[in-house]
């Protein structure tokens, strides 16, 4: 993995109004930690002309106002900040527990995933929920978290033909990634369960439940608990934030 880290970090232009800082060419905790750390540092730095930061797996996009700053000025400034990062402590990660009903109508592909790997459904579920996942980035549709990584034993290729509609809350696997559909959307991930939590609400601030750098743990629940949580979550009583 180590040789996939860019030495030095790459600074790349993105049109006339953004730039990309690329830390490596792999999906890894080490690379993503650098992305998140720089993201936090730039947020604090409040550099003039910086309008928006978009952290992803292995890079950070900085959208800026070309009328109030330049590409060269920004690269200079950000390189300075990047140098200080190694000395700072790792960014604290929020812990979020996502309750999930696995299998049945909630997870229509659980049987396939189990058969594909010659495991029992229970084993697949256990392998999925026992591990902690990092939110590498949010993308695809509003609020969709890309989580990594599932154990090799349950990594499964996408559906050959994507479904036209995957229900909101569905928890899926695509190769070594796992993710949660925030709204009904077309999609090809293998769906193994569903959460009653609402991951995206444009009327809420912030509009997404998760953010890059968060730590997520899944917790198996029963159908009855699903209904209860669904109701309490609507009332805003249920909190998925916990001291894991």
């Amino acid at each position, binding site marked *: 993995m180590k040789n996939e880290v860019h030495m030095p970090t790459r600074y790349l232009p993105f049109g006339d109004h953004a730039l990309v800082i690329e830390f490596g060419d792999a999906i890894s905790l080490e690379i993503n930690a650098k992305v998140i750390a720089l993201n936090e540092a730039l947020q604090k730095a409040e550099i003039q002309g910086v309008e928006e930061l978009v952290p992803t797996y292995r890079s950070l996009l900085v959208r800026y106002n070309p009328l109030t700053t330049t590409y060269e000025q920004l690269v200079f400034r950000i390189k300075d900040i990047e140098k200080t990062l190694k000395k700072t402590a790792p960014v604290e990660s929020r812990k979020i527990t996502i309750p999930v009903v696995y299998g049945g109508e909630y997870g229509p592909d659980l049987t396939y995933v189990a058969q594909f790997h010659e495991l029992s459904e229970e084993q697949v579920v256990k392998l999925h929920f026992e591990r902690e996942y990092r939110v590498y980035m949010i993308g695809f549709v509003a609020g969709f978290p890309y989580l990594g990584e599932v154990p090799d034993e349950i990594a499964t290729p996408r559906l050959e033909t994507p479904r036209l509609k995957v229900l909101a809350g569905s928890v899926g696997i695509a190769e070594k990634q796992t993710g949660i559909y925030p709204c009904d959307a077309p999609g090809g991930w293998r769906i193994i369960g569903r959460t009653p939590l609402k991951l995206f609400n444009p*009327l809420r601030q912030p509009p997404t439940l998760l953010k890059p750098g968060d730590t997520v743990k899944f917790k198996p629940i029963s159908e009855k608990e699903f209904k209860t949580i669904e109701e309490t979550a609507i009332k805003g009583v249920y909190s998925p934030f916990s001291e894991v």
Partner: protein
Amino acid sequence: MKVFRVIKPGLFTTVQDLGRHGYLKCGIPISGAMDTFSLVAANALVANNPNDACLEITLIGPELQALTRTQIAITGGVISPKINGQNVPMWQTLEVQEGDLVSFGKVESGCRTYFSIRGGINTPLVLGSRATYVRGGFGGINGRQLKTEDIIEGFNKPPLKARYSMPEDLVQQFTGQYKVHVVLGPQADMFTETGINTFLSNSYMVTLEADRMGYRLEGPIIEHKAKADIISDAILPGAIQVPKNGKPIIIMRDAQTTGGYPKIAVATILDISLLGQAKPNDIIEFHKITINQAREKLFEYYKLLNNLSCMLLTT
């Protein structure tokens, strides 16, 4: 305040402003008017703020009945607007009386027409913007395109005493052939020299797969060095992705915020707006530009946008 009733919605008419900023990290695109200049101009012609919400009309116009006296302006794609069946000019302040019927022909040049109402359109602000994001189902009127019997709400603003029109040299012409300036990168190094030359020295045609999310283009195949995918990273409007088939895709305002194809280049802010007027079968040529050259052009453009209201003619 009810300002218009929708008699016919047109092909795809949405409420748009200058977009929703600051939520790309949540997976929410910027959205907003595809052609920024025409939206700002439409607002200036009725003395609105540049960011006030207007209707964005796509190819076939709606039919709207005025529920009150107001003033409107129509800019962007040429569409032969009519009030009560009489042709009226674009790029001018127009007077509308209660009961008047505003209708449109088909867009004759360009792709998108902007319809401003004195005071702006009033829909709830969602994450700081009124822009409709249809795929996400929020913004504008219930997160969707207009439909028959919708009521367009406005703000109660005193009517204008003056009438304005756009100086002719500032009225944009949409020829169907567009020169788009691009800054190479961020993944230009994933293409061969031949690939980059192919991209910069040929014309590409907009296919039928073209909407507010992006345009697939048809034309000579752009050669990758080796692989044609990357670990998904952030994309913005203007990004030009080239998937394995070698045919470019231009990312537009409603596109998803991350993507896994290498980006050979990114169009300049100015030309993203121009691209907003491109429609299927239009021809696009890409021209390389440096970041600093792009910046100089942008200074001129913003000077124009900021001074637009002073440059209008009083009629």
